[in-house]
């Protein structure tokens, strides 16, 4: 029964996401199956978690579960009808030569291995005490986190202010399984990895016009120790890899939109970027970086109005969650002070230490091998190309790293260096798939052949 519940939960997540994806993509006439599968998972987890949060303000228990299930199925039906009306068909891009077959096989084998490996580990410290704890407490209270949790000083260690994207995806599994099952809940993380690898293959292929480059990059992805072997990778149930997948998708579809002027791609960008602050608080920084880069891109392409509209969903999520936290009197987070110019001036002396720690971490081979060296070479390639699109991609890698580094100017920990050392490896993970996208584009030099992908 538990496994049946698990599959029902996963099925409803995918159906909800599939409905939204098909509604957006149907007008194109052709729906890429891989594209659709990845976006279905990303959108599905976002939709279900948002529905549980919003629905939980009005009802709980079986009513909440039924309402969310019906909404998921309704979204699926609406998407299917949109597909039928547009007479759209599914297409599966097939490898065309031996190299593509081999690389595609490696990517699928790696996904299978990581799916298996993730069940060999327990949830890590943050995975358990910052994220899963919210899912469990909500499950024990009929699918709604009790208001007393947010204001509890004693449980401030679990960061009640953190958003609910991943905990409520886990909660959805718990509600269907009928118990908070920590073993099976971990299945969502390799699914995010699968979406990451496949999206990376797809986006590099599309933007470079070379499918082998996309597949090669996706095949190299799990060799970054931080994603596979480190304490913050997918095997320990942290939200950093899921957040990085949303960021990768947002960056990729933003670039693809600029190249094609297809408004459906901007809708996908809007949805992916809106979910960034819903996955982790640092998602606001990634969202802000995307807004800056997107504004620059859209300004040069005279599409500012379109882009400004696409910021709406993200802004709604940020404001909505902040407002909710105020209403429930959340226990104030004590990790960072409110940013101000005077504090910035006061702590300017930290810059030296902060950048020293950053470079130490970037060159830590046990976490990254030489990934950041490869990424730096790619960024140099992209800057040297002097093409706006590639400059924006370089910015999408560099800007969040700079922002993340500078937030430690406002750290309230007794030792800001200890704060940074303990958290910056996880923050760098958020940018890692986007950096792979940059590597993929730098690797491929010839004229794009977009029609193949």
């Amino acid at each position, binding site marked *: 029964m538990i496994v049946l519940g698990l599959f029902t939960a996963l099925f409803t997540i995918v159906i909800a996401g599939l409905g939204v994806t098909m509604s957006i993509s149907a007008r194109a006439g052709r729906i890429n199956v891989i594209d659709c599968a990845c976006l279905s998972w990303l959108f599905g987890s976002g939709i279900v978690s948002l529905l549980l949060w919003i629905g939980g303000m009005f009802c709980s228990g079986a009513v909440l579960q039924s309402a969310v299930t019906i909404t998921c199925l309704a979204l699926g039906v609406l998407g299917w009808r949109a597909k039928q009306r547009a007479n759209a068909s599914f297409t599966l891009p097939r490898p065309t030569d031996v190299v593509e077959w081999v690389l595609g096989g490696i990517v699928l084998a790696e996904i299978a291995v990581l799916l298996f490996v993730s069940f060999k*580990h327990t949830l890590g410290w943050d995975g358990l005490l910052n994220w899963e704890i919210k899912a469990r407490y909500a499950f024990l209270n009929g699918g709604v986190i009790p208001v007393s949790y947010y204001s509890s000083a004693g449980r401030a260690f679990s960061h009640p202010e953190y958003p609910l994207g991943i905990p409520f995806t886990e909660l959805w599994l718990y509600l269907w399984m009928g118990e908070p099952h920590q073993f099976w809940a971990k299945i969502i993380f390799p699914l995010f990895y699968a979406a990451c690898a496949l999206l990376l293959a797809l986006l590099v292929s599309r933007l470079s016009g070379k499918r082998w480059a996309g597949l090669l990059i996706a095949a190299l992805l799990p060799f970054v120790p931080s994603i596979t072997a480190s304490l913050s990778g997918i095997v320990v149930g942290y939200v950093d890899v899921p957040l990085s997948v949303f960021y990768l998708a947002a960056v990729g579809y933003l670039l693809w939109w600029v190249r094609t002027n297809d408004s459906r791609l901007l809708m996908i960008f809007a949805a992916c970027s809106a979910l960034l602050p819903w996955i982790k608080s640092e998602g606001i920084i990634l969202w802000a970086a995307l807004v800056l880069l997107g504004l620059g891109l859209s300004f040069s392409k005279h599409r500012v109005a379109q882009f400004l509209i696409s910021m709406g969903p993200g802004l709604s999520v940020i404001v909505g969650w902040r407002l909710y936290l105020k209403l429930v009197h959340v226990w104030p987070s004590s990790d960072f002070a409110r940013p101000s110019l005077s504090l910035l001036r006061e702590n300017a002396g930290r810059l030296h230490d902060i950048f020293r720690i950053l470079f130490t971490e970037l060159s830590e081979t046990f976490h990254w091998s030489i990934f950041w060296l490869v990424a730096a070479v790619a960024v140099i390639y992209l800057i040297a190309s002097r093409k706006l699109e590639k400059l924006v991609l370089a910015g999408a890698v560099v800007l969040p790293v700079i922002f993340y580094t500078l937030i430690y100017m406002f750290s309230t920990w007794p030792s800001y260096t200890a704060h940074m050392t303990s958290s910056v490896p996880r923050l760098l993970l958020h940018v890692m798939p986007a950096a792979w996208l940059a590597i993929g584009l730098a690797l491929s030099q010839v004229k794009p052949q977009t029609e193949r992908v």
Partner: protein
Amino acid sequence: MRLRLYLHFALWCALFAAFVWISAPIVGPAIMENRVGPIEANASIDTYLRALTGIEHGSERIPDIFRHLGKEGVLVIFVRDENAPSEFLGMLIGYVSWPREVRVIKATEATVEKEVADIKPGSVAGFVFCSVDSPNWLEKRVRLGSDIILVPVTEAAP
């Protein structure tokens, strides 16, 4: 032009080869370590509690013990300052004791007595000491496992 292309691919081949060469010895053993399972609902928390305190099925046993404490009142959890395993254990106790209100206090051997003395007993259901020695004058100390001591202050009505 062709030379440039060769140099380009040589550079990337070298970078990718070095990347995989350094990664493989780190990623490979990480993939091979551990075994799947046990397929249990509280697999993660029980594993940690077993490792830190020796208590089997701690996620069920510890809340069962806490049910004997008075229904009202805070559970005060003392953890050793600057000691990650102790702080982690304190948080695990906070996790499993839901929905009881908890208070986590970081203390050292030198300060723990004063910290306990400063707490108004009327507001407390019990004290839990995680890798911290409890003051000798506290009575009814119950050792739950290695490195964890419970001192009930109030008890549930029969």
